[in-house]
């Protein structure tokens, strides 16, 4: 099922969280996913492709925020970025920290590209994003041919 993604900036985005957002958006679009952008928690205003009021719909909201502290989830690092992945609920609903459907990851000093990969990996793990193909058909043939020539496989 094709999904629409909303990448949402929450609170006051820092340069770091902007970088993470850009990386996430680039990766999703590179995989052919539709991405809408929003700021300030207004997922319902995110633009075309966002159904409104349906019980279950193919919208995944990736909320990227940067905070000085986040006591409500027990993280008190001096600075970090959190990412919330919110799927299958009406647009505009505020993610509930108590629910399992939300993910919060610390960034601290983690390289943005690495952090992005963890976001993408989590989307894949939850089945919200298909795993990227490793090889095209032609590339796979190329590698199999090489392995056959080397004697590893027949």
């Amino acid at each position, binding site marked *: 099922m094709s999904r629409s993604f909303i990448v949402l900036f929450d609170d006051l985005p820092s340069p770091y969280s902007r970088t993470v957002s850009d990386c996430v958006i680039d990766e999703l679009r590179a995989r052919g996913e539709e991405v809408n952008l929003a700021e300030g928690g207004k997922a319902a205003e995110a633009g075309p492709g966002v159904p409104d009021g349906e019980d279950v719909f193919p919208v995944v909201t990736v909320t990227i925020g940067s905070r000085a502290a986040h006591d409500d989830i027990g993280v008190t690092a001096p600075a970090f970025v959190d990412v919330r992945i919110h799927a299958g609920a009406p647009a505009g609903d505020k993610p509930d920290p108590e629910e399992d459907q939300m993910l919060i990851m610390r960034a601290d000093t983690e390289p943005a590209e690495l952090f992005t990969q963890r976001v993408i990996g989590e989307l894949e793990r939850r089945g919200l994003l298909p795993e990227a193909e490793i090889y095209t058909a032609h590339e796979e043939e190329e590698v199999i041919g090489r392995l056959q*020539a080397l004697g590893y496989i027949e």
Partner: protein
Amino acid sequence: MSPRQRIAIIGLDCATPDLLFDRLAADMPTLTALRQSALWGPLRSVIPPITVPAWSCMTSGLTPGELGVYGFRNRIDRSYQRMGLASSRTIQVPRLWDLVTARGGESVVIGVPGTYPPSIIRGHMVSCFMAPNTEVGFTHPLGLRDEVEQVTGGYILDVADFRLADPNETAYRIFEMTEQRFRLARHLAARTSWDLFAFVDMGPDRLHHRFWRYCEPRHPRYEPDGQFTGLFRAYYRALDAHLSHFLEVLPGDCAILVVSDHGAQSMIGGFCLNQWLIEQGLLVLTGPLPDQPTPLAPDRIDWSRTVAWGDGGYYGRVFLNVVGREPAGVIPADSYEQVRDELADALTALVDHEGQPMGTRVMRPEDIYPEARNVPPDLIAYFGNLRWRSVGSIGHPRLHVFENDTGADDANHAELGVFLLAGRGVAAERRNDLSLYDVAPTVQAMLDLPVPPGQRGRVLV
């Protein structure tokens, strides 16, 4: 990661203790000198001793069964058709560079088999020869690709046209690839910051498979006066010089580990596993046996009358066609063990082309792995203890063949590779009980990394 201990792992795929520690020791003064202050010895590989999964076992400390990787290509499910290439994503457990990343350290990883597509780590990764070409994203970060291309003048993923090219050309390409790997390693070791440096050169493996008959007097087709008789000495002298130059750029506090994933031995020939199963009445074709070597495609098999089939490669994988497990299974579940035992006995009793016992070893996954994930073979067979490769194709004039339809192959893998560890706090000692599974726990201890669950190896320092 403080106080800072660093380690550089120099992987030499297929390097053998016989060559490195004995016959060519005088031609490798750097390695031989390093041995004086090192813990070293032969290293027992995994079952099977194949590049994939062996390097991933070494860097995770887990068995092929726990990784669910039994070779380069594995059954994806219990259907008869679906096979998948093992990739970095198949490895679902942390490897050393993942632990370093989690700890906040940095790694440089170059050419370690099982790293395509490259993982996102702290540091730099150039993935292995499983990358289809250098146009794809084979590095992390992606931008590293340009640097790699610039430093190497065009990165060589592997020796092109390995068996089909003129042997002089192949030899040249092997030397060139090794020189290039070390050049890149030297460059990144000097330019970047790292705690773990791990690179693997496939050159020794390619050399052994293509030219083993020129270095091994016990090889059935040994050529003592052949054109390539001096090739091994020249190659290992060159490799030792590359090693010497690489060591020059390492920081003084750096531990050094030279290691291989398996060894090499003479390959006598190939044993036609599926053709033998056909002769035993255990594998039934939908049509006549072809009159020339032909790959055994699933649609050639009458699955409703087939008990077992096999896979070719450096070792044999045997699969049983079980009711309720395979789509058209014929072996009732309650007969499975009996059928498997009988087949194991028959394989163990195989004779060679001269009617002598082959010395085949047959193993059951559950006997050698604590867990067998994904789709393991029902039996693992080392024909002649790996002196014969497994031939999966059918239509051969006899069960024992000496020509490989993909070109010359002189060597098969052997279970003993090499291990040499030098560094602060490492006592100089030769040991004969080293295991590939010891590598990850030892490196973890030296870098003060956490110990993932399930590892069986020992800390050697």
